[in-house]
């Protein structure tokens, strides 16, 4: 279907007898906010890996906009606007936040290979990196090394790195994972503040985030899509409750 920002069509992947993706079909219209939920081990991160090219599907296609990207290596998909963040921080420990984001901007603008000009000559890239960090409330700490940042700030830096690649489609892998309550406000604001030009799919266990931001929820269980629907439909569905929301929902109802 043209008009979709990103779609996975008939994607299958197994490791020996372990099936991690079974005939997965996902379609993301441009500009939406969809959530991907499912129990642990359902294959959510694996699906992200398949979409971004870290894993090759056994069969099926990944289509970004009009282009079939199934055969492209990860950096080429990023170049075309498909960007992800990581569930467990994958940052540059000894680089400052500013340097990390500047690096991402430089790579995007293809100026990274220039070894004969000083970095400080690239004012545009540095200013853009700084602006991204300021927008995510990381301005005051942008000079600090990544490893010295608080955990919540590091999660924000994950998003900053992704934004530096000017994504058209952004895959957020559990952005709020392990972030303490006090630090999650900026995170929520950052996600809310994402431009409507960007199509967002986020994996989350935090139901507050899911119900607040997602217009549609996809439920993944055992490598295949169980169902897809609006938050209300998902919350009401008995199968979903049984598999995933079940216990928590019952506890909430009976206090």
């Amino acid at each position, binding site marked *: 279907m043209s008009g979709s920002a990103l779609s996975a069509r008939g994607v299958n992947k197994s490791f020996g007898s372990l099936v991690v993706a079974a005939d997965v079909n996902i379609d993301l219209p441009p500009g939406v906010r969809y959530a991907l939920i499912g129990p642990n081990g359902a294959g959510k991160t694996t699906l992200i890996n398949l979409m971004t090219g870290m894993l090759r599907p056994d069969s099926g296609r990944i289509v970004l906009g009009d282009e079939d990207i199934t055969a492209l290596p990860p950096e080429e998909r990023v170049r075309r606007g498909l960007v992800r963040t990581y569930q467990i921080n994958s940052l540059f420990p000894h680089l400052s936040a500013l340097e990390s984001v500047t690096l991402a901007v*430089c790579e995007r603008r293809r100026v990274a290979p220039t070894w004969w000009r000083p970095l400080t000559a690239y*004012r545009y890239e540095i200013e853009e990196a700084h602006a991204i960090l300021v927008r995510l409330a990381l301005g005051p700490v942008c*000079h600090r090394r990544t490893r010295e940042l608080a955990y919540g700030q590091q999660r924000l830096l994950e998003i900053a790195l992704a934004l530096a690649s000017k994504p058209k489609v952004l895959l957020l892998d559990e952005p709020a994972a392990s972030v303490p309550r006090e630090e999650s406000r900026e995170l929520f604001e950052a996600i809310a503040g994402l431009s409507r030009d960007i199509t967002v799919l986020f994996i989350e266990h935090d139901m507050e985030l899911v119900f607040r931001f997602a217009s549609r929820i996809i439920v993944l269980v055992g490598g295949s899509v169980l169902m897809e629907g609006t938050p209300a439909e998902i919350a009401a569905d008995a199968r979903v409750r049984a598999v995933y929301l079940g216990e928590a929902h019952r506890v909430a109802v009976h206090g």
Partner: protein
Amino acid sequence: MTSETLAAAASAAPAGPNEFLRAQARWRWSEIAFWLATLLPFVLTPDYLILASQVAITALFALSLDLILGFSGIVSLGHAAYFGVGAYTAGLISVWGWGEPLTGLLAAGLAAGIVGYITSFVIARFRHLALIMITLGFCLLLQEAANDANWLTGGFNGLQGIQTWKLLGIFDFDLYGYTAYAYALAGLFVIFLVARRIIHSPFGLALRGIRENSARMPAIGAPILSHIRTIYTIAAIIAGIAGAMLTQTTETASLESLGFQRSADVLVMLIVGGTGRLYGGLIGAAVYMVARDQFSGLNPQFWYFWIGLLLIAIVMFLPNGILGGLELLARRLKVWP
């Protein structure tokens, strides 16, 4: 000298982003003092200028290894292969009748660069133990091949008949060593400036990104294989130039210039000095070679006993080498140049 420590200092007094980055690339007084100090041997120890030239050459070689190991995280146990290619290229050109040093340097750099470029296609694809074995294997292969091809290399006895012409037509490479040291030091300084420029360029930032987290690099759109090939080729060229300088100043080229021993020695020097700091290789080379000269009366076995002990001590207590230790000290004493 390094972004880490500068970041610590700068975070106390926040500046604009561009100013912050520029502050890291600024020349510090300790660096200027260092380069002025390299001129001292002319005045203080004129009897040791030949040794000084050897130190400068080895320092250049260590610098080339730092670019791939310290800044990019590529562990190579066989970097001497490119040093040897450069050494033998310069030697062969001289034996075949052309002993002009500067063009010999260019030719050696080119030859080593070509070999480096070709091997970089393989090197870039591997990590961990496979990479260590491949770099080691290639070095050993080259050493064996050079030994077997004694019609070309002179085999065990080395190349005979090398004669280096006067530098710029004026300065003779004599036993006093003035020309040798000036030549080696100038080469070291010029190439150091190039290396420094690389480190503070966007490419240098990309290299550090590769070292810090190579898995994340493709996810920000980085062509990691291409980056690695580039720096590996540059490092090979520099190593080749260093090898050529050795041949030209000593008028010999032998198998030990491309063997495992030389690869291991330069690795030790870089570790002792401190990786990823540009000056680590220089300081490590100076310390190592001066010490070896002082203890040259000793049985080589005993030398390696102490080197072994030093390696263990460094890995266990001072993993960032001498420069790392100095940085810690400077931070403790709140003195920062």
